[in-house]
């Protein structure tokens, strides 16, 4: 256990910097040790990483070795690297709501309803996979038609667009008034 310490250190360092898994043969060549000895040192490393306070792990990939992280710590790594997802802007929400209610719809139609340009908000929605291009509208310029995606339905727990609250049912005050007057 106490001998071969420098070689164990070198072995660990090699497995640490390796870009691809290293075979026991290659490790043996570099460290000038026979493969059996390498296997022994690898075993020692594997044991060392077993402790709960250790976040590293010896990965054996088709008989070649490399250091990796334990699955238990994966979520922290995700936090480190995940792009903080920015909440959708008000403009994007407005565009999304219009598309949800009146799909398929063109950008020009969305612009008209909102009374302002919606190109940037629309691009964000497409990029985030909430809205997609579903074809082109007949007529001059053949503008692109947009609809919501499955991801949109999934998020709101809707199995289809028919499950969307009805614009007529949810009601606007003035609109309710108007509707009741009508009945």
């Amino acid at each position, binding site marked *: 256990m106490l001998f071969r310490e420098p070689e164990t250190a070198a072995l660990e360092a090699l497995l640490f*910097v390796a870009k691809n898994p290293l075979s026991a043969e290659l490790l043996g060549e570099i460290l000038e040790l026979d493969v059996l000895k390498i296997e022994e040192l690898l075993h020692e490393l594997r044991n060392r990483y077993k402790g709960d306070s250790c976040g590293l792990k010896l990965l054996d990939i088709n008989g070649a070795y490399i250091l990796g992280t334990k699955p238990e710590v994966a979520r922290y790594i995700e936090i480190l690297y995940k792009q903080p*997802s920015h909440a959708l802007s008000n403009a994007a929400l*407005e565009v999304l709501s219009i598309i949800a209610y009146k799909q398929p719809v063109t950008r020009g*139609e969305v612009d008209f309803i909102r009374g302002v340009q919606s190109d940037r908000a629309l691009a964000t929605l497409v990029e985030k996979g909430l809205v997609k291009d579903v074809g082109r509208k007949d*007529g001059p310029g053949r503008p692109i038609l947009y609809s919501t995606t499955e991801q*949109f339905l999934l998020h709101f727990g809707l199995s289809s667009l028919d499950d969307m609250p009805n614009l007529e049912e949810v009601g606007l005050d003035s609109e309710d008034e108007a509707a009741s007057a009508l009945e």
Partner: protein
Amino acid sequence: MESQKTVPQVELPAYKGPLDLLLTLIQQEKVDIYDIPIARIADQFVEAIRNMGPMDMEVTTEFLVLAAQLLYIKSRELLPKPPKDEQGQVEEEGLRQELVERLLAYRTFKQAAQELEALETSSGRSYCREVDVEGLLANVEPEDPLKGLSFDALWQAFCRVIERAEKGEEIHHVEPDEIAIDVMLADVLRRVILHPKGMRFYQLMRIGSRMEMVVSFLALLELLQSGKVRAEQLTLLSDIMLFPTKKAWEFTEEE
């Protein structure tokens, strides 16, 4: 000359420049850097360059420049000094002083370089990993951009659109008698579209002026004529109800 015998010890490619060579010669002579025996050192310097053999032209030039400087200082020192030539005296001191300063500065950094070299061997040469972030995240689902968003928030966004249409900001900011028919046309159509279950004609009025009513009515007539809006009046005295038709969505082509 005696000094020439010491010169061949010098292994020239090891010199990192003329200052390095000069410094080495001074150290070999074991003389104070502030009190360089210029005549002797200059000769040694020139001799060393002579022994260098073919070298990189630029490097050779740099050695020659310093050699010339040394020889110049040497010649000044050897010349008998005219008693009243104070300016010459000052100039000579200045040249020597400048050389000493450059040597001192160079020596300092040469020593620093040696310390860095020692550090490089003792504590440095640590390697870090080359991290493949994309690979790390390959199995991670991208975060839901709708995370934390309730349906209510989406609905509120829609209500904001409706409110804005109701307010008709561009209408309010214009004097009623300036309301252009096409502005009013878009405004009326937008509001009718947002009331799929119908809205009363009088709801279109915001200001209530006669001009507004006339322009709104003209806009409505045009929308009725183009078939984008449908009007209903159940009884003679009840309100006129306005509904969007399928054709209401054909406005973009006109824009």
